[in-house]
């Protein structure tokens, strides 16, 4: 006997709802096995990963802070992926946004520039992220070059550019030769929501972005256009929608959101520009987008969940000496399970006897 896939007549809404939960459950089972292999007590490790961060207010705020860039980037990516445009260079757009915004912060440093510095930084970062994302989009539309490869190559380029800037022209003269800019002025810093806490304005901005995306996709013709171009490109062209324009648009929007996330991270929790400002937000956001089933509300929840794993991973490292790479493995495994479970929305399993299979030698 052999298991084969069979197409469902219509997508299963039940499975669409429970599949992320199944995926998370399977991931946790896998992690328990991995912890056991690493010689750690699985129950304690799970507690450190998923429960401990939820028990104190500092960690809770930290989860929201980590979720902010993840959700912001993932919302943009989800628009791309829905439209079947594969932007996987969000990490680069994030860095370029951080660089562009920081440029302004560095330029106005020590001057008596007013409260408009931060808004200007946000606008600059979004614009730079969008422009940077437009490079692969235009290469795709004008020349047919794979946007997957070009957007990814630009991640390495952005990383090197940032490295050059903080080691060269923008280095803090009083920074003991560390590759970093000086701390940003207060007018160039994202304000905190609670004095002395960690939550900052970015979390409010990201909620607005989620709401806007939800309305866009569910209620507007533009949202419909994005969905139909991805789901049935030829039908979309027949409907009068231009896939190329949409690639440009979705790349620009996702680049802008990634750029915005970048400057919010730098001008918020980090406070200055330095290498390693991102623990791979741009790539983790891909997981967030899929775990949230490319749906804005789902992405919000998925972003919080993955932020939890970041915080939990750090705590598990401190408390139990579990390597940080376990978090990355966890995220990769989760993405596999999410994709696998999603397959069951469109297909169902069926048992067939294997001796009846169509076979023919390859020799």
């Amino acid at each position, binding site marked *: 006997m052999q298991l*084969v*896939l*069979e*197409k469902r007549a219509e997508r299963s809404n039940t499975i669409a709802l429970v599949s992320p939960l199944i995926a998370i459950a399977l991931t946790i089972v896998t992690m328990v096995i991995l912890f056991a292999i690493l010689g750690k007590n699985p129950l304690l490790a799970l507690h450190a990963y998923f429960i401990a961060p939820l028990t104190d207010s500092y960690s809770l705020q930290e989860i929201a802070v980590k979720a902010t860039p993840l959700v912001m980037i993932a919302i943009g990516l989800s628009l791309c992926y829905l439209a079947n445009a*594969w932007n*996987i260079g969000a990490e680069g757009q994030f860095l370029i946004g951080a660089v562009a915004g920081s440029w302004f912060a560095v330029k106005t440093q020590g001057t008596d520039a007013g409260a408009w510095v931060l808004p200007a930084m946000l606008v600059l970062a979004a614009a730079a992220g969008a422009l940077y994302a437009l*490079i692969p989009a235009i*290469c795709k539309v*004008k*020349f*047919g*070059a*794979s946007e*997957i*490869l*070009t957007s*990814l*190559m*630009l991640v*390495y*380029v952005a990383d*090197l*550019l940032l*490295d*050059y800037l903080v*080691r*060269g022209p923008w280095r803090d003269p009083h920074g003991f030769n560390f590759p970093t800019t000086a701390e940003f002025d207060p007018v160039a810093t994202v304000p905190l929501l609670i004095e002395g806490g960690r939550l900052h304005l970015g979390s409010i901005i990201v909620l607005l972005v989620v709401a806007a995306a939800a309305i866009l996709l569910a209620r507007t013709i533009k949202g419909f256009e994005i969905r139909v171009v991805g789901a049935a490109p030829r039908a979309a062209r027949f409907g009068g929608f231009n896939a190329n324009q949409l690639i440009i648009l979705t790349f620009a929007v996702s680049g802008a959101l990634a750029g915005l996330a970048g400057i919010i991270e730098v001008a918020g929790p980090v406070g200055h520009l330095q290498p390693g400002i991102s623990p791979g937000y741009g*790539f*983790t956001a*891909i*997981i967030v987008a*899929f775990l949230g089933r490319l749906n804005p509300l789902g992405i919000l929840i998925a972003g919080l969940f993955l932020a939890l794993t970041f915080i939990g991973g750090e705590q598990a490292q401190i408390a139990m000496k579990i*390597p*940080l*790479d*376990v*978090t*990355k*493995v*966890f*995220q*990769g*495994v989760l*993405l*596999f399970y999410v*994709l*696998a479970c*999603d*397959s069951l929305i*469109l*297909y169902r399993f*069926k048992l*067939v006897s294997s001796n009846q*299979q*169509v*076979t*023919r030698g*390859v*020799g």
Partner: protein
Amino acid sequence: MELVEAIILAVLAASTPLLIAATGELVAERSGVLNLGVEGMMIVGAACGFAGAWLTGSIFIGALFGIVAGTMMSLIFALMALGLAVNQVATGLALTIFGVGLSGLIGARFVGERITPAVHLSIPGLTDIPLAGRVLFGEDAFVYVSVALVVGVWWFLYRTRAGLILRACGDNHVSAHALGYPVLRIRTFAVMFGGACAGLAGAYLPLAYTPFFIPGMTAGRGWIALALVVFSSWRPGRLVVGAYLFGTVTILQLHAQGWGVGIPSQFMSALPYLATIIVLVLLSRARSGGSTAPAALGTVFVPDR
């Protein structure tokens, strides 16, 4: 003269992992499967390859470890993208994200360790011929294997019936299925071959290129290998040209950094990535009439039973 020889040797060394990984991916893509997880398979191959060599002291066993690791990774991909009909782009990305994490986990305890790198061929008389001697007769085994691999793949694809069947699956899986060929099984083998090659290419880095392991040491080579397959128009012959051209760019920028050209090193380091983008644009533009990609590339196939 010695500088020229040194540069050629360095170019061959830098090109070899690209050539091996791209050859594997070419076979997978010819069968109709787009596996974007090359980078992930390579990095796991690198970690396992180093682990194998460090534990046994044998470069050969290290390479085997790399091959097996790459194959196992590709089996995950095959299970997802072929068995469960998951979108191949998403699965490939997942494989890379997973691979980067896994290699960090496996390789963590080997960071800072050193091994004796793969030996180079030495034939008295031949190897000493000026200029050509060391280039032709003084390489490590990986270089010779990479060349044999490309020739073998060319012969397989165009001179054997199995190769014809594999190309047929990449052209039209519905027809191949209708003629009774087990499309998914053939594709699984092609993906496994791609994984084995990626694993070997990854293992080359810590076993021959540099004698130690650092996390993330593939540095995008898997992605560049993917771009090379596009560059080659899915033909093994052009793949060789592309890989060596690419190795040349990499080595020349390194030398330029060494010569103290007044350009910041980061900009020179960005050259290979920028070159990839430019090549992709130029090629895609030149081919605007029609694509030479396998017609079924990247499409999901679920046989009707």
